């Protein structure tokens, strides 16, 4: 047995064990992209670097996946030096990574809803899946489907070709379909946290915040001066035009929101301390663990009278965390912005819920984490054509707004499927399983640090059910190793050398012919989205191929 230390912890392993395996024994998680149990060690990605000090005092960085342990070796894994090296490897890989993790529409959408995922579900007519995706980020989709000015569609890459995908209408159709069901979608909430939150103001911000706080396991009481929740959505002078947003739709949607288990107290107006019949911030602080103020626009004097710090546009809060200077008191939506879009209110509600959740669970409010994404930016016409070639070639059509009913007919479902099929799927098909993205996020890698000339976006083997995107390939060698180990007649190989090396099929045969029955396995080992199923399906994990 060989004894060594990793991050100061001593461990004993048999000779020939790699540092990676020794670290795993200690529960130290070393990131790897090119390592996979059961396949030969590739030592190509260099994300698993560790610093070792050997007996002779020499210090160096080595890839832990392929370096055997030595007696009395001292290994550093979780130090700043090592993290910096891993970050550099990741940043270099990202500098040559042609793809968007998240689609541009997702960035354009103020609530950052996973639009491409929703569209894939709609295209395959899985509305039940689509509503789950929608409600991850939007508490009021039927409402937004009617009142939103659709910033997402302005971000759509297809917009510059033959019109953006009708994202907003499609979302509305799914939401309407859901609300028409007897058993509309009610998500399961996390286990009760034992903490109580007061949300004051039941407009779009308050409803959203209450919904997501409840989903995170907190007990929520929603207060409003009106008897019915809805706030400005019921105000004909604001967003409550019944011709656009029928009260029937609004009522059903609010019912679905409250169904997660939110207590609503109507007729409770926020008042300065000691005003009878109202609720005061101070007293709420006494009764609840956190208070979120999301009542509408007020003037400065009113805010001060209510005992809240005010700024130029409303209640003064810290950007991102929504917290005021009063401990445990938060404000969001029009309370801090004056007048904002309904979708902005929904986004604020969700983000404030996240910040309050952190405050309740970790003692400190944290801002909603900006999702990590590599972004290509502008695409050339040929590149757009490349994406276009995989989507439905149908013109954009407006989908009928079912103003007075939530019912849908088959024709509408079919039309929705076609419209959703127009999506170019700019987002990455491997998003959930991408280890490059996971570690880039963990090490705070900046995709733009070493930005060079961008390679052209290409999709290869489009006729196959497996796609190869050379721009996303990090040349780790795992897929090549899978086909090599299986001694496939054709298989995959590296083509070229150096910076331009990529994976290819010999003699220009098809990927289907090259991979045979190993397609699923090759997609499964790919640490990025370079090899993916054309339909975005996630490969089943294979027993011998666990990530290292």
């Amino acid at each position: 047995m060989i004894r060594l230390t990793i991050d100061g912890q001593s461990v004993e392993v048999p000779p020939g064990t790699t540092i990676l395996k020794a670290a795993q024994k200690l529960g130290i998680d070393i990131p790897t992209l090119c390592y996979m149990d059961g396949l030969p060690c590739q030592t190509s990605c260099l994300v698993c670097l560790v610093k070792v000090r050997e007996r002779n005092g020499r210090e160096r960085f080595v890839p832990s996946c392929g370096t055997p342990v030595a007696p009395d070796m001292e290994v550093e894994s979780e130090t700043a030096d090592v993290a910096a090296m891993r970050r550099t490897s990741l940043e270099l890989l990202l500098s040559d990574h042609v793809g968007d993790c998240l689609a541009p529409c997702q960035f354009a959408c103020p609530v950052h809803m996973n639009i491409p995922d929703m569209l894939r579900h709609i295209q395959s007519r899985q509305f039940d899946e689509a509503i789950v995706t929608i409600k991850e980020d939007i508490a009021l989709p039927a409402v937004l489907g009617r009142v939103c000015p659709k910033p997402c569609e302005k971000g759509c890459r297809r917009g510059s070709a033959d019109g953006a995908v009708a994202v907003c209408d499609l979302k509305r159709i799914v939401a309407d379909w859901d609300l028409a069901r007897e058993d509309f979608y009610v998500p399961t909430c996390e286990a009760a946290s034992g903490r109580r939150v007061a949300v004051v103001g039941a407009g779009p911000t308050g409803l959203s915040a209450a919904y997501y706080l409840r989903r995170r396991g907190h007990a929520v009481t929603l207060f409003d001066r009106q008897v019915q929740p809805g706030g400005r959505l019921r105000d004909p002078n604001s967003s409550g035009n019944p011709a656009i947003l029928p009260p029937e739709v609004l009522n059903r949607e609010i019912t679905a929101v409250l169904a997660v288990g939110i207590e609503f107290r109507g007729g409770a107006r926020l008042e300065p301390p000691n005003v009878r019949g109202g609720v005061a911030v101070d007293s709420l602080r006494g009764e609840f663990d956190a208070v979120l103020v999301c009542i509408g626009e007020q003037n400065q004097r009113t805010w001060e009278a209510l005992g809240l710090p005010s700024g130029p546009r409303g209640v003064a809060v810290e950007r991102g965390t929504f917290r005021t200077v009063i401990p445990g008191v938060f404000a969001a939506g029009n309370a801090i912005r004056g007048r904002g879009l309904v979708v902005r209110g929904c986004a604020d509600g969700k983000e404030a819920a996240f910040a309050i959740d952190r405050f309740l669970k970790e003692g400190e409010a944290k801002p909603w984490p900006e999702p990590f994404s590599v972004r290509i930016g502008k695409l050339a016409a040929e590149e757009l054509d490349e994406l276009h070639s995989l989507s439905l070639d149908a013109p954009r059509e407006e989908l009928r707004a079912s103003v007075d009913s939530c019912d849908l007919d088959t024709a509408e479902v079919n039309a929705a499927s076609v419209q959703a099929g127009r999506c170019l799927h700019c987002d990455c098909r491997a998003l959930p399983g991408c280890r490059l993205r996971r570690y880039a996020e963990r090490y705070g890698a900046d995709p733009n640090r070493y930005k060079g000339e961008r390679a052209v976006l290409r999709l290869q083997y489009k006729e196959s059910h497996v796609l190869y995107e050379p721009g996303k390939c990090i040349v780790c060698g795992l897929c090549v190793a899978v086909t090599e180990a299986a001694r496939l007649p054709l298989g995959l190989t590296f083509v070229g050398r150096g910076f331009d090396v990529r994976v290819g099929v010999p003699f220009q045969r098809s990927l289907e012919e090259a991979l045979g029955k190993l397609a699923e396995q090759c997609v499964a080992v790919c640490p990025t989205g370079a090899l993916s199923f054309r339909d975005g399906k996630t490969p089943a994990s294979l027993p011998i191929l666990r990530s290292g």
Partner: protein
Amino acid sequence: MNSARGQSLGGGTAETTPVITSQPTHSIDLSPVDEILDRHGRGPEATIAILQAIQSRFHYLPQEALEYVCSKTGISAAQLTGVASFYTQFRHRPVGEHMIHVCRGTACHVKGADLIMDALVRHLRIPPGQDTDPEGRFTVQPVACLGCCTLAPVVQIDQATYGRLTPHSVPRILTDFLDRSSNGAVPRNWHFISPQAAEAEIRVGLGSCCQAQGSRRVYEQLQELTVRNRTPAVVKRVGCVGMCHQTPLVEIVPRRGTPRLYAKVRPEDVAGIFDSHFRPRNPIRRLRYHLARWLDALVGASEEAVDRHRIDVRDPPVCAFLGRQYRIAIEHGGETDPLDLDEYLRRDGFHASRRVWRDLSPQSVIEEIERSGLRGRGGAGFPTARKWRIAAAAASDIKYVICNGDEGDPGAFMDRMILESFPYRVIEGMLIAARAVGATHAVFYIRAEYPLAVERVREALRRCQERGILDGKSGGEYPVTFSVSEGAGAFVCGEETALLASVEGRRGMPRLRPPYPVESGLNGRPTVVNNVETLALVPWILRHGTERFAALGTPGSKGTKVFALAGKVQRGGLIEVPMGVTLHEIIEEIGGGALPGRTLKAVQVGGPSGGCVPASLFDTPVDYEALTATGAIMGSGGLVVLDDSDCMVDIARYFLRFTQDQSCGKCTLCRVGTRRMLDILDRICEGRGRPDDLTTLENLSRAVSAGSICGLGKTAPNPVLTTLRYFREEYEAHLQGRCPAGKCVALIHYRITDDCIGCTLCAQQCPVHAIPLTPYRKHEVHDELCTRCDTCLAACPAGAVIVESGGVEIRRAKVARGLGAGEAAAASPLR
């Protein structure tokens, strides 16, 4: 005009990522492929040899042939495709009738290889993005280094090498080549007299560089003359003399009397030199001879020619060049016929190996080498004895000794010269190594760019087998089986694990060590990989005793080191000096110092893995540790001298472009890291640098160096780090839009001053018509058309063309003799 200069051809475009395309289905005759398979075998290890043979038959790799190989052998389609696309030697498209290889070595780079490339492309009218002229006559391809550094810049057209080129001479060499290939008579081999009966020996250096300077024609003429005149002399081809700055060299060594050395001999001088030594025996011939001499004397031509070329080894420059040297690895350089086995045996050849195999135990061989202090000459300086000891201790019935002849550093050609000139010496070194470690097999790995070296080593092995020294049909003296593997154009194969992959017929990708090759190398067996020079030193050490070797050098670095001295120095060449000699002594005494009117700035030591040592540190001794302390490394021994006309940022970029292009592409830090470093350097050289670029560059360099898995990546940042350390102010000047040396094309401008006399020479010679023809008026350069080829500056007789950078004048055309500045001004019609 920018980074794309010279890169349009293979530098980083289409050709680097060969798409294995299917050729039009016109059927080709595949019967030669069967022959090739019969000759080279059908196993995976034969992959590279098979591909090379197919390429030499078809001039590229037709896909039908590759598919056929797959169907007939055990080589998988994946391996064949992977290998064919890894090595730059392989071509996937049909080529022109003739191949022009443009050397991109360091010496060629600093002497304007890019301009030669531009001139070729322009002259042959090669369309952008392509490499073959529209008529399909010539295909132009850059190569890493042809190893003729002292003749820079150099191109090779098929087998002919042309040196010391200028953009202006490009059309001439093409015409010359076509003329020669059309008369194409290959001379017969003349043998007239036995060496024993000869009264004199005429030695002609026939190394690759000498041949490039025309020594082959000199040799042929001398042979013809001896035959015609029945002269009792032997014309002998000898290996490299090392004095590359004087080539072609002819040495006449009479049995009695003083040897005479003639330098820079032109074919038209040969007769004169010959006649001054050998008088015809036949009375009629003698009469004719005297008549000719008398006529010549009247004209006075021939005598003068002879005097002009004769140099004496006692002449001060020759003394200086040879005096500091101590020759072990290149002992007898310029005296012996590389392939004459008898001569090698006469000079104690195979004595050391015989003693080692008969009288010494492997253990004592290793001990002797250990006492000599020999360290690997390939660059890293690992103690040879330690390597041998580990391999000797490894238990295996099969072990290998490999001679690493994949000398790929631009600016280094000592291994080529040793293999070409002393093949028997290296074979003997390998026999000794084989005894020490118990090896059963010995493999030469030689890069394909060295055809002469491959040819001579193969021939030397054949002759040894014939003589029963090596294992042949009749059994040999030594139980070691020799073979030769050729590289296929991948610098990284100089790295030992990549070399092993290549010998096994795979892509030359290094792997992580341990396990080290001495434990698990070729085919998983213990393998010692030694550099050519290391092996060439071994027989001498065992013949003359370890003490004599260890007496040379410094405490840490024993013996001698061979260097290829090139660049901006008076006398370039191949030299062997004792360790401990200072860079100053090499550059000033042996090399003769700076070119006239120039000041030395730095010397680039160790090629792309090494660094630039500034002139202020020229007292650094040649010693592994001392050189490493400067940030450079000993490396394989390239010394490229740089002067004030060289831009250090450009030099750093040049080396990085080389390593980046040669990266195998396996590990992230090297594959992407070197590319991003190059992006930054490109930016800086093009005047688009950002304020934080130097910090980013430095940090990235350190990361690439610390994290890459093989020597190529670990050392690739050295040229950048050393120039940043010693010449940071040049980087900063570039950030401000100025190239102090006037080298970076995007930062310099050509301008014609009022001194212009309107002679139109510049306008006539400008290859891109950037100077309108305006007789008797001041000319002007159109900056946006100008390619900075420097032709106008060379053409201007009036000192009126200047190069500016950042508003500062860098260089100015010379005023032609007989045309003083004042006269020029007076002659100008503008005054």
